[in-house]
């Protein structure tokens, strides 16, 4: 138990403000649970929201690798998400134009392979150039992917979309909503652990250097093109996995789901959460979705009805207002990155961290990097 609490305090809670943020999140969780227990919130509704938040968290983790780690500007989050969703839908739905009805595993695998391939295709011409080229090319990609799906209807079913996508793990003794929520939690855990390992390492360090000063990284002999490509591909693959998951959550997909608004929300989530921080990406996604879904019900509140205004469409305004507030009071986002990017196992015994390393945790003491209260 003490191991768990020390992990929580060292990994999740670094200072007073962070403690308040997590306390708030904890309180909201308790309220939700109470809401379910008292029957105010339907458990099915809540589990569906968890799955949705989880999917956005995956997308944010993906963008965080690209923008947060490496400084790559990708405006085609929705496109890679759509690639993943369509790979899953096309391969697994029996009534898709391909009509294969394969096991969902193949959908996920295809999502990974195809998104990686397309990321490499976009990366080859743009990543050698200045950063804005990727931004422009990715803007184009988002539209191209949508146009292809819309117009190549012999392959993609076009605007009529694909239905009959199978549910994941339907043999589990859980409700379908609980199963999808469990799956997304599992996916986030796997992605999170993967990213944690690769980020706090010489690899992550080179990316951080590139983000801050690419010429310096080159002058020190780093093949920055290769590093940027790796970050771009990893981020895109994570986005596609989120898309494949969505196909099995919603059981139906059509091209109108690939709206640029998704890309916008994910950027907001990453910046809000704290650019470069995995914890931040997850929390940022939760906050953005909470606002988006929460404002759906604004018009149902009696007081607002009496005002006679339609508030739900003003959602973006709320998101914008929130950003301004957070950037005003917490410039680097809710949970900005705190870790020194040093391989944790190499920290102990090497004297790194100086005197402040005395309380180092067995895994190398993430909380003990003396200089990290920046």
């Amino acid at each position: 138990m003490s191991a768990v609490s020390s992990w929580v305090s060292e990994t999740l809670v670094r200072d007073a403000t962070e403690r308040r943020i997590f306390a708030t999140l904890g309180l909201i969780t308790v309220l939700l649970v109470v809401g379910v227990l008292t029957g105010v919130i339907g458990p099915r509704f809540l589990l569906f929201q968890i799955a949705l938040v989880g999917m956005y968290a995956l997308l944010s983790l993906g963008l965080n690798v690209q923008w947060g780690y490496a400084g790559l500007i990708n405006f085609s989050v929705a496109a890679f998400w759509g690639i993943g969703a369509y790979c899953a839908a096309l391969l697994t739905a029996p009534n898709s134009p391909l009509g294969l009805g394969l096991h969902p595993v193949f959908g996920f695998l295809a999502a990974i392979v195809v998104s990686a391939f397309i990321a490499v295709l976009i990366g080859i011409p743009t990543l050698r150039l200045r950063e804005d080229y990727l931004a422009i090319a990715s803007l184009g990609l988002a539209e191209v992917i949508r146009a292809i799906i819309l117009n190549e209807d012999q392959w993609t079913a076009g605007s009529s979309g694909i239905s009959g996508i199978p549910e994941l793990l339907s043999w589990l003794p859980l409700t379908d909503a609980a199963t999808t929520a469990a799956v997304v939690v599992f996916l986030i855990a796997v992605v999170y652990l993967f990213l944690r390992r690769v980020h706090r390492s010489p690899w992550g360090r080179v990316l951080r250097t590139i983000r801050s000063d690419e010429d310096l990284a080159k002058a020190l002999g780093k093949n920055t093109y290769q590093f940027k490509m790796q970050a771009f591909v990893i981020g895109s693959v994570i986005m596609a996995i989120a898309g494949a998951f969505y196909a099995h959550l919603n059981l139906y997909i059509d091209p109108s789901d690939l709206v640029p608004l998704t890309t916008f929300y994910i950027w907001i989530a990453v910046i809000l959460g704290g650019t470069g921080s995995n914890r931040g990406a997850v929390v940022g996604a939760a906050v953005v979705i909470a606002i988006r879904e929460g404002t759906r019900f604004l018009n149902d509140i009696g007081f607002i009805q009496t005002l006679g205004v339609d508030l739900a469409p003003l959602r973006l305004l709320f998101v914008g207002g929130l950003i301004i507030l957070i950037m005003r009071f917490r410039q680097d986002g809710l949970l900005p990155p705190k870790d020194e990017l040093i391989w944790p196992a190499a920290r102990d015994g090497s004297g790194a961290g100086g005197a402040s390393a005395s309380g180092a945790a067995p895994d190398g003491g993430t909380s003990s990097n003396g200089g990290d209260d920046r």
Partner: protein
Amino acid sequence: MNDDAYEGARLDKSDVVLKTTGLEKAFGGLVATDSVSIEVQRGTITGMIGPNGAGKSTLFNLISGFYENDAGHVTVNGEDVTDLEPHERARKGLVRTFQTPRRLEGMSVREAMLVGPGPQKGESIFSLFFSGSDVTEEERANIEQTRELLERFEIGHLIDQPSTDLSGGQMKLVELARAFTTNPDILLLDEPVAGVNPTLANDIKRFIRELNEEGQTFLIIEHDMPFIMDLADPIIVLDQGKVLMEGSPDEVRSDDRVIEAYLGGAGP
């Protein structure tokens, strides 16, 4: 100054680490580097001076591959590197620092230092998962080297500082230390003491000399005349993109053309 005054550099050296032949670079109509051929002998501290805009930084950018040259060749340890990317040249042992200090946002001094050694095993994602203990071992050694080097440069106490909090002079020291961790055959320093207070500048001079005594070769651009005259031999003088002359500090100091170049640069 007429063209005959440009004597060029000495090109008869033995054990040459870095050699350029006929390097050219023009920006639009402005010829910033005009047929520059120089040689840097192993084990020396070779200085490079010249008035503002003489083309010193441009030459560094050509040598290190950050600018593409219009003509000419760059050779490192006898190998032609003209077609190589900057990072490939760095791996061949040619490492440079920049005139304006590069601050690494969000990195501690320790982290900023650890980017230097390379290529590191832990820079491969595959190794991170499949040979974690090798990564650990190498990272430990690098952390230890960082600590020792910073202590040697008398800035060991800064190791935990955010690198954005350092003074300009401290940053120059960290950059020198970091460049050294790449284990280069030749270090190109662009104005290592510009804007650095005299005490720290003296420290930097001492450290450069120490590293040189251990065999490190340097090519150093510097405007601070007492500094470079005291430290470097030979000194190459650049003016208007061309090599004016090369010689010992005394020869350079007493050369009329050098004086004229500086006065001409300062005049109307």
